[in-house]
């Protein structure tokens, strides 16, 4: 069964027909040719497909496209402002926060969403004081909040300082 939906992807409105079994990730990659989000596991276990969905980070492989008619999707490509990379993107390059690069767009979208969550005062599992005003994003907080994004090349030791530089 097919359905007509509209998505706003990286600032551009796109109309498309999707198989109702199609994930948001496959709709982006296969129907719209937006290949910035990657498919690593298709089960929400690796985070490579992370996008900002209506402003919050989400694994797009666990979202059915048809359920997100009218949604706003921002990928790592959409974080670029003209030719100017997002500060997280520049920091990932400077700190060598990736090797093969396949998890990277997901890491960067996840980090962007995570910074907003911390800004809004959302606690994590390692937040000691739940009543404190605001979250201090130390390395332990960053590691915890970024653990939904696997990096098999294991660039974690470089990802944490890259994010920390932007967070502080």
């Amino acid at each position, binding site marked *: 069964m097919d359905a007509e939906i509209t998505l706003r992807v990286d600032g551009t409105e796109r109309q498309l027909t999707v198989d109702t*079994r199609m994930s948001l990730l496959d709709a982006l990659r296969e129907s719209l040719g937006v290949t*910035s989000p990657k498919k*690593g596991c298709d089960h929400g276990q690796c985070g490579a497909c992370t996008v900002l969905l209506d402003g919050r980070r989400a694994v797009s492989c666990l979202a059915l496209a048809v359920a997100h008619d009218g949604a706003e999707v921002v990928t790592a490509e959409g*974080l670029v402002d003209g030719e100017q990379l997002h500060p997280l993107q520049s920091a990932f390059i400077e700190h060598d926060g*990736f090797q093969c690069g*396949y998890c990277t*767009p997901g890491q960067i979208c996840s980090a962007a969403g995570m910074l907003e969550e911390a800004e809004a005062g959302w606690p994590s599992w390692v937040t000691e004081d739940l009543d404190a005003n605001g979250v201090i994003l130390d390395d332990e907080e960053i590691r915890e909040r970024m653990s939904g994004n696997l*990096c*098999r090349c294991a*660039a974690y030791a470089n990802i944490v300082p890259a994010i920390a530089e932007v967070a502080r």
Partner: protein
Amino acid sequence: MSVSVTPHAIGESLDRLEGPLKVRGAATYAFEWPVDDRAYMYPLQAEIAAGRITGVDSANAVAVDGVLAVLTHENAPQLADAGDAEIAALHSPEVAFRGQLVGALIAETAEIARDAAGLVRFEYEQRAHAVEMKADSDDLAKPDEAAQFGAGGGELQNGEPADTELGDLDGALAAAAIELDQTYTTPMHNHNPLEPHAGIAVWDEEEGLTLHCSSQGVHMVRMQLAGAFGLDPSRIRVISPHVGGGFGSKVYPCSYLTLATMAAKAVPGRPVKFALTRQQMFSLVGYRPPTSQRIRLGADESGRLTAISHEIVQQTARVKGYAEQIGACTRTMYAAPNRRTTHRLDPLDVAVPTIMRGPGEASGVFALESAIDEMALACGMDPVEFRLRNEPEAHPESGLPFSSRHQVECLREGAMRFGWQQRDPAPRLRREGDWMVGEGIAATVYPSPRLPGSAASIRLGADGRYAVRIGAADIGTGTWTTLTQIAADALEVGVEVIDLEIGDTALPPASSAGFSSGINCWGTSICAAAEQLRAKLYPEHGGAVPVDGLEVTAEMPDNPDMANYEMYSFGAQFAEVHVHADTRELRVPRLVGVFDVGRVINPKTARSQLLGGMTQGISMALFEDSVVDPRFGHVVNHDFAGYHVAANADVQTIEAH
């Protein structure tokens, strides 16, 4: 012939040149090339561990709207050479392991292909199977496979012999003042690169096969597929400029590429997209084989080793042997006049194992270094001091000198940086809350080999830019950046005028990205080409570029010193380990490594390689374990929920020097 290069760009921490593409997700991986009129393939896998297919019913699948073809052994194209079980697919009804490819569904969309794949029914005649490795199996056999990699003529995949023996081991063990006899086991591990094994295959009756696939060596893929299909290699083009991780699983072309080629032939002219699922990767792209390793050591009263024995049993497949160099580190690391290493295989009804990051060395050094630690304790010595005392002056087996060996410096500097001297060796002495705290050390070694078959071409255009071309691979190792740095210095120009091209069989041949040999083989080829180009440009053309440009191609020159020296990298790693007093959960909050790796082309990318390897070491030691169900022969924990690889919070302080 030797080539000398004055370093300018070499040694600089240049940011990755493809970095701006990768951080936006704009680097094109195999599955992402824009193609029109595409079809999708979904593989079908055997549901038994051993036996044969006795019937196929694909009628329900064929009837689904949008299904283009169902391929099984009954209708698949005949292979010209089905002799290699890792490459052949659908050539017979035999099932050698659970998860083996038995068919393919080709359809208009990925959703239709996957849905209809579930409608194909196979009937099987099962036979008894064995999928659990046993160190005392009656089937144990000495490896007799030809080496896949490496120049030696031995039976292990790197060309080393299966067995080595020096002196009188049994006599020395019997006479030893202190003796150790321990057995260590390692489980099956899966590579799990984040990018699945995926791509796009197009068959054109005139031009042949164009294959975008995620590969650590495009020329290897072309050669193997040409052999399997009886095609002239010139009719196959393999393209793979960006690889989303491989760790060995994308070196040898596996049967899924054969299947993709068959699928492309079934719908000529249409690009067929294929991607293994994470679950399928646990049975179709190789794995690190489980091992059982018995180590016996003998020492005199001063803590000097007199005997070293390492007897290895590793799993392999009945359909094709694979034997890795698990004893290699033991042959290299410590001095002792009496020594023995043996490798034996337990062939099972399983998929063929393959190389995985540090194949052999990774499993073997774990056992060796564990034994050395236990022996140090038995001798009443500090583990660092024990290693220093048993440092060899030359290679302990070949007797050749090392080209360089700074193991002692690595151990001493590591001990200083880590604060090893402050450690109290008594067990269970320190606790932090519920955690018991201890420290450990392991030495490490890896060869610096060369593989044959690389060449590079350089074309200098009238615009003053240099096109440097070689079919090499960047699997995250930094090849795009480091080969550009090498080319710039070899040509004595800046990196900004170098246009590197890699990852395409349209380029000169290159050895695969394996064995940690790429930068050596490809870089040397580029240096040789640069020297030829400069010789042409200056004496012949007086430094002026002709209007048509200048082009040279050079093969990798021999390094005659390789016959006279043993060439290795060395290192020492120091770990702080926490063990939970109640649950026995393990954590590694601090890991410090000091390495002697020879000339570093790019400190930034090299450091990332070391940090990545160390982190994968934590992951291997603490988390990774592929659990096979003996009743059915499949990996039970075949996804990232069940097979945990180190996540961000699993890694705390980690330093590489």
